[in-house]
C-alpha cells in the first residue's frame, strides 16, 4: 500500500487491479475432475427433479385428461383451483397437520433423545435407537393398514384398551373431531425416529466441558437444558424442523389409507387432492396447478425458516 502526503491528511491510493492469471492446466484438470464426479448427481437432479417440475408448471397451463390432446388453459386451472372449496380446505388441513405433527414429532424426539442420551448402558441406548428408528424403515402404507385395524371403532385394539379403563369407544377414524388426531398420531409414531436420531447426533456433538462449566456456575437439570443444550442444539433443530415440515406438507399415505380424506374433507391433504384430481378425475392440468402451488408453499415456508434461523440458531 502506498501513502502520499496531501494537505494534512493521509490518503490511500488503491493500485489498479491485477488481472487474474489464466487457469493452469492443473486447474483445468481439477475442474474437469470435479465436474466428472458431480455429473451423475447433476444429471439425476436435472432428469428427476428439474424436468418434472418444469413439466408440471407447463402442464398446469393446459387442460389435459390423458385421453384427448392437451388444450391451452392459461391461468384457468389456477383460478379454478383457488376457487375450489375442497382444494382450499385441503391446504388448511395440510397446514394444521404440519404445525401439529411437526411440533409433536420434534417434542417427542427431543425428550426421548435427552432421555436416551442420559445415564444409560450403551447396549440399552442402541436398543432404544433401533426401536425408535424402526417404524421409519417400514412402508407408510402398510403401517397405515395395520393402524386402520387398531383404530377401528368397533373392533380396534385401541378402543378395547380404553374400554378396560372404562372409556367409551372413540370413533377415531369416522368422526370429524378425532380423525385428524388419529392421522397425526400414526404419522408422528412413524416419523419421530428420524428427528430422534438427529437429536442424538446433535447432543453427542455438544462438548462436555460446556455442561461442566454450566454445572460449576450452578445450573441444574432443566435450566441447563434450556440455556445450554437447546441453544447448542439449535442447528440440529433447524435441520429437523425443515425436513419435518417439508415431509409433513407432502403427507399422503396415512390419510389416504386411514380415512381416505374423510369424514367429509376433514383429513384431505393437498397431495391427496393432487392424486384424486389427476388419477381419479383425469384433470391433470388442475392437479399440476395444485402441485405448483404446493411447491411454492414449501419453498416459502422453507425460506422463512432459514430467514428466522439467523435469529434463533446458534453455531459454536
Amino acid at each position, binding site marked *: 500500500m502506498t501513502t502520499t502526503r496531501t494537505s494534512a491528511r493521509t490518503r490511500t491510493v488503491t493500485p489498479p487491479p491485477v488481472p487474474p492469471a489464466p487457469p493452469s492446466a492443473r486447474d483445468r484438470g481439477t475442474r474437469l475432475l470435479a465436474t466428472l464426479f458431480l455429473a451423475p448427481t447433476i444429471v439425476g437432479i436435472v432428469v428427476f427433479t428439474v424436468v418434472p417440475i418444469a413439466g408440471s408448471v407447463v402442464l398446469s397451463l393446459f387442460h389435459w385428461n390423458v385421453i384427448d390432446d392437451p388444450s391451452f388453459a392459461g391461468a384457468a386451472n389456477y383460478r379454478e383451483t383457488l376457487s375450489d372449496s375442497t382444494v382450499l380446505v385441503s391446504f388448511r388441513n395440510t397446514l394444521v397437520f404440519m404445525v401439529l405433527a411437526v411440533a409433536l414429532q420434534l417434542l417427542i424426539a427431543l425428550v426421548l433423545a435427552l432421555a436416551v442420551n442420559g445415564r444409560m448402558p450403551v447396549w440399552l441406548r442402541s436398543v432404544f435407537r433401533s426401536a425408535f428408528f424402526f417404524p421409519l424403515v417400514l412402508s407408510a402404507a402398510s403401517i397405515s393398514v395395520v393402524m386402520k385395524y387398531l383404530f377401528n371403532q368397533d373392533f380396534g385394539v385401541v378402543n378395547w384398551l380404553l374400554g378396560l379403563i372404562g372409556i367409551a369407544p372413540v370413533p377415531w377414524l369416522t368422526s370429524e373431531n378425532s380423525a385428524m388426531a388419529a392421522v397425526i398420531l400414526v404419522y408422528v409414531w412413524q416419523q419421530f425416529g428420524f428427528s430422534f436420531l438427529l437429536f442424538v447426533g446433535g447432543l453427542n456433538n455438544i462438548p462436555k466441558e460446556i455442561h461442566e462449566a454450566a454445572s460449576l456456575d450452578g445450573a441444574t437439570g432443566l435450566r441447563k437444558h434450556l440455556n445450554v443444550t437447546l441453544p447448542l442444539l439449535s442447528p440440529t433443530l433447524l435441520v429437523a424442523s425443515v425436513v419435518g415440515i417439508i415431509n409433513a406438507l407432502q403427507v399422503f399415505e396415512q390419510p389416504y389409507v386411514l380415512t381416505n380424506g*374423510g369424514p367429509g374433507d376433514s383429513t384431505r391433504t393437498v397431495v391427496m387432492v393432487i392424486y384424486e384430481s389427476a388419477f381419479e378425475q383425469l384433470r391433470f392440468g388442475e392437479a399440476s396447478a395444485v402441485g405448483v402451488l404446493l411447491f411454492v408453499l414449501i419453498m416459502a415456508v422453507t425460506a422463512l425458516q432459514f430467514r428466522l434461523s439467523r435469529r434463533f440458531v446458534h453455531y459454536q
Partner: protein
Amino acid sequence: MTDSHVSRRRLLRYGAYGAGAAALTGTAASWDRLTGADIPGRDDGSLVVATLGPAYGPEAIRTLTEGFGEVHPDIKLRINAVQAVDWSDFFAKILTQIAAGTAPDLVYVATEGVQLFAQRLGVALDQWVKRDAAELREYFADVHPSLVESMMYEGSLYQLPVEFNAADMYLNNQVLKRAGASFPAADWTRDDFTSLLRDMKKSSGSRFTPYFWTNRLWGGVVPWLFANGTNLLTETKAPGGAWLWDSFYPAAERQGRGGGFRWTTPQATHDRVEEVYDYLASLIHEDLCTRPEGGNGQNLVGVFSTGRVGVTPAGGFWAGGLHLAGMQAADYDVQYFPRWRTQRMQFGAAGYALLRTSKRQEEAWEFIKYAARRDTLMRLFKTNQTTPARRSMLTADRYRETGPNHWQTFYDTLDKFPDTGPIPAPPQVAEVEQVLLKHTGTALAARRSVGPALRRMQGDLEKAMERDV
C-alpha cells in the same frame, strides 16, 4: 530416480474415468431393463390384455394364455395383471399406462368404468356381435339381459360381461343362533331387518356390531337407495339396442330394455334419499351399525368370520373369500337385500373393453369371445372369487364346499328381480363417487347433519355432472 507412486490426484482422475466408463457400460448393458424392452411380449406384436391382478393369479393367467394359444396359435398374447386394491385403483393405473403411451389392447373394466371407457376410449362391439351372432347365441342365452344392458352405452354394446356381483345380505349363522332368530324370508322387509339387528345386539356383548357396511359406491348407501325406490342420479335408458335384444333375447326378456343406462340429474336432496340417510343414522344412533369407514371392506372378512359382525352386504365374491378365511359352508348364509318401497337391488359387472388405440382389433375380438366361453370361465372361476355371468355355472356342486346354502340367491337377484340394476356410474363416476363418499361420511358422522350434508352433496354432484370428463 522415478517415483513409482501414483499421485492422489492422478488416482482420483483415473478413478473418475473408470467410474464414468463403468456407469456408461452399466447403463448400456441394462438399457433393455431400464426401458422395459425386456418384458416378454412387449412391442413384439402380442395382444396385450390388462386384468385386475388380485382376481387373476398366475394360474388364471396361465389358463387364459395357454387356452387361448390352443384356439388361436397364430395370436401371441400377453396378460398384464395390474395389481390394485379395487376398481378405481385399477382404473387409475390403466389410465397411467395410457398416459405413458403403453396402452393395452384390451382392459378388464367393471361397471364403474364402462361408460367412461365407452365414451372416451372404447370401441363398440356391435359389428362383431352382428357378424358372429350364430356363435354368440349360446352365450347370450346363458347371460341375464340386465348384465348385458349394463355394458351398453348409447345403443351400442362395449363389453361381454363375464362376471358380476349383486349386493345381497350375508348373515352369520352363529350370530343368528345366538339371537334366537331364524334365517330371514326372501321377502323380508326393512323393519324385519331392523328387528333382527336389535335381537342380535341384545344377545351379544358390547364388542359386537350387528350391521357393518363400507362407505363406497358398490354396497354402501346405494343398495338402500335402490330399496327405497330412488337413486343418487336420475336414471333413464338410452334409446336403441333393439339390434341386440331382437337378435338374442325372447320377447319377455327384452321387455323394457334399451341402449344402456343414462345417469344424469343429481337428486341427493330427494325426500327418499334423505329417508335412507335418516334410517342409517338411526341405526348408528341405536348402536346397531357402525359409522361407515372408507375402503374396500378388507377388514370385514375377519370380523364377520369371527362373529363380531352379524350382517353385511356383499356379493358372490364373498363365498370364496369367507371360505379362504376358514368359514365352513354352514357357518353363514346369504339372502336378498330387504324390501323397503321396492326390493330392487344393485350389481356391478365386468368384462373386457377394446381400446380404440389397439391395432389388433380383430385379434382382440377373438380374445373377448374366448374369455366369455363357458369352459374358460369354468377354469377361471374355480374358487368362487366372484359370481360368473353365465347362469349355467351356478350349481349346487360349485357351492358345495364353500357355501352358502342359498347360493341360488346370487343369480336369482337378477332372475327374480328383473329391475335390479347397475350402480350409477356415468362417465364422471370418479368424481361422483368421491362426492358420495365424502358427504356420506359427513352426514353420518354426527347427529342432525344429514340434511346439510345432502344439500352440499347435491351442489357438488351438480358441479361434477356439469364437468366434461
